[in-house]
Structure formats: C-alpha cells, structure tokens
C-alpha cells in the first residue's frame, strides 16, 4: 500500500471541481419536513388502509396545483413489473381523470412517501390501496367543495376533463377548487369508491406507459443517465468472498489514458475515468496489479444437504396441528433440494451518485430508496437528511440483486470525488459472483395417507438461511464491508411471520388435520444470500406439490381431484378447476415421451391464488426437458390491469421454467465459478413453450392481492409432476438438468 493511498484512501489526478450538473429539484424537502412536524400527537390513531397507515396525509400522495396540474406520489418503484401503469390507473379512476392528466412520481426520498421496499408482490396491496383511498377522498373533497360553491347536491355533479360540471352546465376546475391546506389532512379509514360499472380506466388493459420509450431508445434506465461532467467508474471486486487486499501497485493504472483516480479504501478498490471504455481497461489493469489473500470459506457444493443441516442453530414452528406423528397406512417420504440461484439481471447493476457540497444524491434501481439511504448514510458517516436516493429504473431485478451495492459503490466513490457525477457500472462477472443469491434449501417430507383417501399425517422440515439481508444497516452493502472502516452484516434472526420468509408457503394450503411444519434456521451464510423472487415459496411449493402428487398416486386418485379433495377455500378450488378445464385435463391423451403435471399455491398462503397445468416433452437420449404448453389460472383479487396480470404471470412461469430446468450457482472451496451465461445457463428461445395461457378470475370489490410471485412455485412443481407422469421417476433436486433426468430415467 502506498502512502498516498493511505491518506484518505484516494489518489487524484486532476479531479475537476465540477459545477452542479444534475438538475433535480430538492424543493420538496420542506414539504416532507412540514408533514413530519404536523404529525398529530394522538396516541392511537385509527388504522388506515394500505400504506396510508404510515403516510397518513392526503397530500403525501396527491397534489393538485392551482393550475390544475395533478401529481400522484408512490413510494413504490417500477421494476419492470408494470406497477407504474397499474398504480396510475388506480389514481386516475378514483380521481375521475384520464391517466394522461397525472404526473406520476415514484420512489424518491426527496419527494415520495416511505413505503419501504417494492417487494413481496405487495405494491398493489400497500400502495394501490393507499392511492385508491387517497384519490377517492380527494375526489370527495372536490365534489363537496364544488357542491358548496354551486349550491347543489354533490349527486348532481360529474367530473369531466379535470373539472366538476353541474347539470346546468356550470363548471369549475380541480385546481380552482382546492388549496394546499385542503389536502393537508389525515385520510379517513373509509372511502367511497367509484362503482365498478362506472370505471373508465381500472379493469382495462391500459398499455404500459413505459414501453414506448424503452423500444425507441429513450432514457429509460439508470444506465442511460448521462449528466454533464459525468465520470465512469468501475470497481475491482476481490477474487473470492473471503479475500482481503494485501498490496497494490497502482502507478501504472494511474498513468493510463483517461484515468482520473484510483480509489482504495481497505479492500474496496475502484477506478474512475473520463471515458467508459478507459474505465474498463483501467479496471482490468488494476485487477492485475492487486494482490489478495484468499481464504477458503465456501462449503462443499457436492453435499449441500449435509452442509445445510450442519449449519442449523435453531428451530421454529411454522405450523402445527393435531397429532402429526405418522401412523398406519401408506406413507411417502422424500428429501428435496434447491441450489443457490441468481437473480441474473440482464443488465448488470448500475448507479450514479453526485456529492454537491454537503449533499449526496444517488440514482439507483434499489427496491427501497429509504432503507438504501439509511445504509448509505451510515456507511459514509453522513446525516440522513443530506442523502437523497432517487429510484431510476434498471434491468429487472427479481428481488435483492446488486442494485443497492452498486449504489453504495457510486456513493463511496462520489464522496471521494466531490462535484462530479460518478457512474458505476458492474461487469457481468461481478453481477454473477457478487449479487446476493437465492438461498439453497433442504426439505424433508414425511406424509401418510389414511384409509379414507385423505392425508392423515404431514411432517415437513426445511433447512434454510434467511431470505432477506436487505439494507437498512450499512453492513448489508458490499462497499461498506470492504472499506477500511468496515461494517459487518447484521446477524439474521429466525422470525416466523404470516407471510413467511424461508418458510414462505411451507404450510400447505390444504386441509391437514395433523401436521407439523418446522424451519431449521441457519444464521451463518457461507454464501451471501437475500431475497430472490418468491423467497422460500419456490422450493416449498415444489416440495409440497410434489408430495401431493405422490400421495395422489398412492391414493389411486387423479392429481387434480386429490387436490380438490383437500381444498375448502372456494377461491382456491376455482383456480385449480379453471386451469384443469382450460388445459383439457379430463381428456388429455398425450404423445409418447410427454407428460402432464399440475401445481397450485396461494402465494404466502394469504395472497394470490394460482394453479398451472402443463405438458412437457422429454428426449430420452439427451435428458432434455421442454415445457410444450402451460395453462394457468390466477385470482389476485380485483383486477386493475388484466394485461399486466397476464404479462407478470407468463413471466413468472417462464422464469420458473428457467430456474427449474437449468439454474445453479457453482463454486469451489474459495471462489464462485458460475460467472457468466455459459457457466450459469438460463432459458433460451429454442426451449420456450409453444404456448402459455393465463386465465384471470376477477374479484371486483375484493382487495388487491398482488401478482408478480404467484407462479414460480406452482410452475416448478408442475414440471416435476409432469416429468414424473412421463417417466415414472420423481426428481427431487433442482434444477432438472439433462444429466439428472438421464440418470433418473436410466437412459
């Protein structure tokens, strides 16, 4: 380590004192502070719907300016799931205006409510519900005020073109009706919604508002930000999770064309250049100039069950009823595994940060602008109010990927180069090797069938890490762990919650009088893990639904009928029946080498219902499995955008096909070895199905249940069941690679 590097950990070669180049208003800071100051001291305020409960003022969500401009705020972020469009529909409907009349502002600590993370398929439930109530209450204020001015009953008024119109033709604009104070009031628990029969926007397949820019080269992603004076940075990550930087000779790198600065702070290493390709070249040179001490910290991936069981420190009871001991009769016993899997965003994580005076602004595809701000502020030792995190869309993340870490990288570097915007772009191998993975899981099931053809006993044991190590604390960020004054990750704790985590959907949705479901909790994380779409539900639904099929076989029952036999929730039965009917389950005569399977779950056991029936074809010689067609049925409550639900469900099924047939992180005792798309293959066009159908059951008046994670578990299970149907062999270990299929069928 050179002396100059130790002083503040930075070398400078012409750092320019850049003028404030990013033009983004901070004007709303005062607004949010005013709101905080106005919080009433009432000890027990009434419970408000959705995220209104935490952000109680109407003007936190909706602003109407004197000129009639309408702005709606959400703390949720567009992640490619179409939430911007769906939330806009909700707001437009209840405000009785067109979607184009609204400026819609998403997650930004300087402007929007704090709604935590955009995760868990909860945006419609939390933000959609809040916006719906806030908009309905604002509409009521507008109508009441117009009625007062016109001296008529509100029932004689209608909304048209951002104005209230009386039956005699008098009209007054929304902007003329409200003053700022009128909306600075607490929401009420109850609202009077528009009747579904009068809907103009909700329930309709409004085209996604973000797609035109995305297909024509518009600025659509954080990757596309190009503020004046922006510098390009690359980080050099350690070669392995346990590595420590021991020495660095950066002189050669500093002399490279375009290089502005080499950043070293402990084991955090980066380079900043004027040009992006120069930064890539300098990153490679810097990697070659660094010496690391590596430690073998990774477990034996050839024996994950033993590894996971060996890490067990605590057991939590997820669900227990009756006497779960396995008695007489037919029994089924099996062990299922799921490997570590990646989010694998097609665009590696990227962020832009700029330090201006005392203030830092970070543009990030984080799922939680507020928690990310907290973590970044802690890492940099900055007061929270001097850090602003603005969500800017990135490549689809599917959970906690590298986005927060890229934001931290950019923030750390920007703090060392005040004035200039700094863009950090991760490389492909960095995303593959350093994003937090979906955790490996081990599941053991023992179940028995009674003489009446019903399940008489159910024992379910799962071994897993936590599925969430999201920010909040700085230790969640790679940069904070690697820097000299390092932060350590929080120790995860076992927590059994209604929506679940590693145990998500471990409790089957079926009527089981005698059951015990346990989560064997592993606090130590030999590989870095966090939330991957559906969390534990992916593997748990796979295991539960595989077991259901085996028990159906033992009962000599049809798998669909056997499930219905154990389902008493009419909405659950409805999706199973609809998927089976549209698939043609009753009369499916399949070609040789084909098989069919069904899978069902109610996501989180409290949200969307989804059933899928699908057909696979299997090449015996190669072990190649392809899903030929999939037919799904979903009930996610009242429908806001049917095409959005279809798009998300198709996506969930296709992504699950990829996870289930191809995907596993590989590693030796020291390094991650799956670092690109050839060492970590995913679904390709040659293997996509011929058709995927999504049938929606709309439930007007019922709560929004969310859609994005409903399909992953059922699709995986249906594939396993279809392979069983085609070959007579049950596969227990994900993914169902060609080799595993060949081994199973003895080809």
């Amino acid at each position: 380590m050179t002396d100059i590097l130790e002083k503040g950990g930075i070398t400078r070669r012409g750092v320019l004192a850049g003028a404030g180049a990013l033009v983004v208003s901070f004007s709303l800071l005062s607004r949010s502070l005013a709101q905080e100051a106005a919080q009433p001291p009432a000890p027990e305020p009434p419970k408000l719907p959705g995220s209104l409960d935490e952000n109680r003022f109407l003007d936190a969500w909706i602003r109407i300016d004197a000129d009639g401009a309408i702005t709606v705020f959400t703390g949720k972020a567009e992640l490619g799931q179409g939430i911007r469009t769906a939330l806009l529909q909700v707001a437009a409907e209840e405000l009785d205006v067109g979607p184009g009349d609204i400026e819609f502002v998403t997650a930004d600590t300087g402007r929007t409510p704090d709604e935590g993370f955009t995760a868990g398929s909860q945006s419609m439930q939390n933000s959609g519900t809040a916006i719906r109530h806030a908009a309905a209450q604002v509409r009521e204020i507008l109508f009441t005020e117009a009625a007062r001015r016109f001296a008529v009953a509100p029932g004689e008024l209608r909304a048209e073109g951002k104005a209230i119109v009386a039956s005699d033709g008098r009209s007054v604009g929304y902007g003329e009706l409200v003053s700022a104070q009128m909306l600075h009031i607490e929401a009420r628990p109850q609202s009077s919604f528009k009747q579904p029969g009068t809907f103009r926007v909700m329930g309709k397949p409004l085209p996604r508002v973000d797609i035109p820019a995305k297909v024509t080269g518009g600025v659509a992603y954080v990757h596309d930000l190009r503020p004046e004076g922006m510098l390009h940075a690359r980080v050099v990550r350690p070669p392995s999770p346990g590595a420590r930087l021991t020495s660095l000779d950066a002189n050669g790198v500093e002399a490279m064309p375009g290089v502005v600065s080499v950043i070293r702070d402990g084991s955090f290493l980066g380079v900043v250049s004027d040009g992006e390709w120069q930064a890539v070249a300098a990153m490679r040179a810097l990697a070659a100039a660094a010496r690391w001490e590596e430690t073998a910290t990774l477990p034996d991936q050839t024996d994950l069950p033993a590894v996971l069981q060996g890490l067990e420190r605590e057991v939590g009871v997820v669900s227990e009823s009756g006497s779960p001991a396995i008695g007489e009769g037919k029994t089924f016993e099996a062990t299922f595994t799921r490997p570590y899997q990646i989010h694998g965003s097609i665009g590696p994580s990227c962020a832009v940060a700029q330090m201006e005076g005392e203030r830092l602004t970070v543009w990030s595809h984080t799922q939680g602008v507020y928690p990310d701000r907290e973590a970044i502020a802690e890492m940099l030792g900055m007061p929270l109010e001097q850090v602003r995190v603005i969500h800017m869309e990135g490549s689809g993340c599917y959970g906690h990927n590298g986005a927060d870490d890229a934001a931290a990288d950019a923030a750390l570097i920007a703090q060392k180069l005040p004035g200039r915007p700094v863009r950090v772009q991760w490389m492909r191998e960095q995303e593959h090797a350093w994003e937090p993975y979906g955790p490996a899981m081990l599941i053991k099931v023992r179940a028995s069938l009674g003489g009446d053809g019903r399940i008489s006993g159910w024992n379910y044991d799962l071994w897993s890490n936590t599925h969430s190590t999201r920010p909040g604390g700085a230790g969640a960020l790679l940069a904070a762990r690697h820097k000299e004054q390092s932060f350590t990750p929080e120790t995860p704790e076992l927590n059994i919650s209604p929506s679940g985590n590693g145990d998500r959907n471990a409790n089957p949705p079926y009527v089981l009088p005698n059951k015990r479901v346990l989560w064997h909790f592993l606090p130590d994380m030999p590989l870095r893990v966090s939330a991957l779409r559906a969390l534990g539900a992916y593997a748990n639904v796979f295991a539960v639904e595989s077991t259901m099929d085996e028990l159906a076989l033992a009962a000599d029952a049809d798998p669909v009928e056997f499930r219905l036999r154990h389902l008493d929730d009419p909405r659950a039965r409805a999706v199973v029946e609809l998927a089976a009917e549209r698939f043609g389950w009753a009369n499916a005569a399949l070609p040789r080498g084909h098989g069919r399977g069904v899978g069902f779950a109610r996501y989180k056991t409290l949200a969307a219902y989804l059933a899928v029936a699908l057909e696979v074809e299997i090449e015996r010689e190669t072990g190649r499995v392809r899903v030929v067609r999939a037919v799904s049925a979903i009930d996610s409550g009242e429908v806001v955008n049917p095409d959005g639900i279809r798009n998300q469900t198709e996506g969930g099924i296709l992504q699950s096909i990829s996870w289930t047939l191809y995907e596993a992180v590989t590693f030796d005792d020291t390094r991650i070895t799956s670092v690109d798309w050839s060492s970590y293959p995913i679904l390709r066009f040659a293997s996509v199905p011929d058709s995927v159908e999504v049938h929606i059951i709309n439930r007007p008046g019922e709560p929004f249940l969310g859609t994005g994670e409903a399909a992953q578990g059922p699709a995986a299970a249906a594939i396993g069941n279809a392979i069983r149907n085609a070959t007579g062999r049950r596969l227990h270990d994900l993914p169902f690679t060609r080799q595993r299929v060949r081994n199973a069928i003895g080809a």
Partner: protein
Amino acid sequence: MAISLNVNGATHRIDADPATPLLYVLRNDLALNGAKFGCGLGQCGSCMVMVEGEAVLSCVTPIMLLEGREITTVEGLGTIEEPGPVQAAFIEMQAAQCGYCIPGMMMSAQALLQKNPAPSDEDIRNALSTNLCRCGTHMRILAAIRRAGEVMQSAGMTGTSRRTG
C-alpha cells in the same frame, strides 16, 4: 485516431481508441441508449445492432472494423412519435417487462425480417438464439416478431419508419 462511423444514416467522426467496442461509442460518444450493456462477452444479445443488414454484437465488435459501414441501432428503426413496424409491434403486443433486453431482440428481429419477411416460428427462434430475456417475456417477443413480419409483408415495408432511399 479518428474513425468515421455511419450510424442510422448519419456520419460521425469518432476520436477513440480503434479497439473500443462499438457499444461504448454508441452509448457515450453518440448518446444512443438503445444498445445495452449486458455482458461484454457476446453472450446475451442486449447490445445487438445491425451492420449492413446483419445482426452484430456491438459489445465485442471494435470500431476499427466498422469504418464506413452502415450501422443501425434501435433509434434507426423509428421514433417514439413514429415507431417503425418492429417497434410498433412490440408496443402493440406489450412485449416487454423490464424491457432491457428488448432493443437487442428488436435488432435481431429486424435483421431476420429484412432477409425473410415470412419467417417460421423456428426461424424466429433461431434468429434469437443469442438473445437472453430474464423476465420471461419470450412468448410476447415471439408474438411481436410474427406481428411485425405480417405488417411489413402486407405493406411491402423495409422495417424502418423513415425513408432509407
């Protein structure tokens, strides 16, 4: 050393290392957002552009090989006001989730449809063999390309909304 690049019908003098991959020049020197960085290894197709009618991975193609050759990016297919047939079809079929891979998909599709206006499903799948999508939008991408082919065929179009002369 300056290199002359013809991108979407306009000629640009680019002062950059001749070994620079085209992707970085498109995104930074020319401020074109369409081609995306996905892997830098030629494995995912999100950087796909067309060079004289062929789909080319811009992240692994140095600009020194492209002097004077006709390069088309997604910006060259049309505009948000006047989208080209492939773009219009992707909008019509709502063939995007996060959308990050989509411009690369559209360039592979454009190169296919210019050569083969009536491709079979297998032709389309083959043309997309390099392109990866992570959101699972595959079914809609296939549908959009079929739709674009129909439109282009019935209109006798070249696939861009501008006149290419």
